[in-house]
């Protein structure tokens, strides 16, 4: 299986190094992943994220209920969305309280919600959503006709305004963070996965290559999936499949804040299991680690925690070298007893790491 986004030829033209990502031929970098990382932190970069899955939820009949459907499907509560265009980040749980996927849902109207899910989980997500949509009379429509370009960085919005169609600029200008607006076949969200300001622009496939060239023309540099990963990790944003999976609940994945426990009578899939987990006392949590010695933290390395004479163990879920901090950083799932430091086992050696809140850089500044 090897899919290509509508921008594939552009990636080749811009000298992207193409790798397989979740069955998609995607650029991992266009030369230097570190340069692309700094480009986003200091100026503006763009990512092709057309492999992500855009799903529109519409009403099948007057008896349909998209809000009720999403309140049952998601651990966060779409009742928080009262203003048109507002976005919400949520986990979609299975019956065991494990995470099927994390997603963004935009509330546009009572008749239209737009959901964006991960590429690597496309089939199971769509099957799960469809399975539960039927009884709420909700139509699930995957928008394979749309491409998506994320423009990120402190200058991303200004540069995008220089080249976006006039009516899209008009729709995008008043957007507050974490809001989206539609404009004809286009949709623009002031969202992202880098910890910087910017837009995620959804647009018809046929117009994507032209926008890519125009953005490049005003100095928005193409960035690959490599930089996307270091940027999101510095920003302390989870990656599905690494920091949470179907076998981990949001409570041990640093995502407790995304669960809406109120109102108590809202029945959502997985609720009873994670409610019991919470009542019994959550045993692990996600922390940030900063390596104090030379080396690079990587996923699956063992974390050793000394607690009252006992040796407890955890595991790194995502690790990398942080281009902004010039140190290695990681997210790790560890026993809740962890103190201010721990050790990480790298190739048989124990290296010292500092334990921090799981966010390292936001809006260009170290946290």
């Amino acid at each position, binding site marked *: 299986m090897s899919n290509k986004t509508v921008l594939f030829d552009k990636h080749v033209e811009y000298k992207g190094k193409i790798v397989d990502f979740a069955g998609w031929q995607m650029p*991992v*970098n266009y030369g*230097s*992943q570190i340069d692309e990382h700094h480009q986003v932190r200091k100026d503006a970069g763009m990512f092709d994220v057309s492999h992500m899955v855009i799903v529109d939820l519409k009403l099948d009949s007057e008896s349909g209920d998209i809000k009720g459907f999403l309140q049952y499907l998601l651990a966060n509560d779409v009742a928080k969305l009262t203003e048109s265009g507002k976005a919400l980040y949520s986990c979609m749980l299975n019956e065991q309280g494990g995470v099927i996927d994390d997603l963004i849902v935009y509330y546009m109207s009572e008749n239209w919600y737009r959901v964006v899910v991960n590429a690597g989980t496309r089939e199971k997500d769509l099957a799960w959503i469809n399975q539960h949509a039927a009884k709420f009379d909700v139509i699930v429509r995957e928008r394979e006709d749309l491409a998506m370009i994320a423009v990120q960085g402190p200058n991303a919005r200004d540069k995008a305004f220089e080249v976006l169609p006039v009516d899209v600029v008009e729709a995008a200008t008043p957007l507050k963070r974490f809001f989206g607006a539609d404009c004809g076949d286009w949709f623009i969200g002031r969202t992202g996965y880098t910890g910087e300001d910017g837009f995620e622009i959804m647009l018809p496939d046929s117009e994507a290559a032209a926008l890519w060239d125009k953005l490049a023309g005003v100095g928005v540099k193409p960035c690959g999936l490599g930089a996307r990963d270091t940027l999101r990790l510095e920003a302390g944003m989870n990656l599905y499949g690494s920091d949470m999976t179907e076998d981990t609940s949001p409570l041990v994945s640093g995502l407790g804040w995304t669960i809406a426990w109120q109102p108590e009578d809202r029945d959502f899939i997985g609720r009873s299991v994670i409610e019991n987990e919470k009542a019994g006392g959550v045993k692990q949590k996600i922390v940030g680690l900063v390596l104090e010695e030379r*080396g*690079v933290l990587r996923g699956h390395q063992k974390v050793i925690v000394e607690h009252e004479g006992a040796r407890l163990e955890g595991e790194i879920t995502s690790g*990398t*070298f942080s281009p902004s901090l010039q140190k290695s950083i990681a997210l790790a799932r560890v026993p809740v007893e962890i103190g201010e430091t721990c050790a990480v086992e790298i190739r048989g050696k124990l290296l010292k790491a500092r334990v921090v809140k799981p966010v390292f850089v936001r809006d260009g500044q170290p946290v």
Partner: protein
Amino acid sequence: MSEVPSELKYTKSHEWLRVEDDGLITIGITDHAQELLGDLVFVELPEAGTEFVTGDECCVVESVKAASDVYMPISGEIVEVNEALADEPEIINTSPYDSGWLFKVKPSADELADLMDADAYQTEIEE
């Protein structure tokens, strides 16, 4: 297109070797290898004085993306390592065959004939 200098010897695991005038052998990773790895951020060098045999994992180079082992291409003793890489591992990206060398070895056997020449390595990485 990766650079493959004609005067060097090569391995399938993308190390290069250069025989110096004093008989020592300088070893590094190839241009092709650094391109595959991407931006290098850490190098774990062997210690001078350590002896290895052909095929031993003797060094680790890490890019932002991944860690990769370097295998000893010949048997011998490490006599010098490139200390500059501790602070500037990115030298390997910019100068893989020159300032980005990894270590120098005093060979304990004559195994150079078993290694690939530039043409053979070029063919190897084109496949």
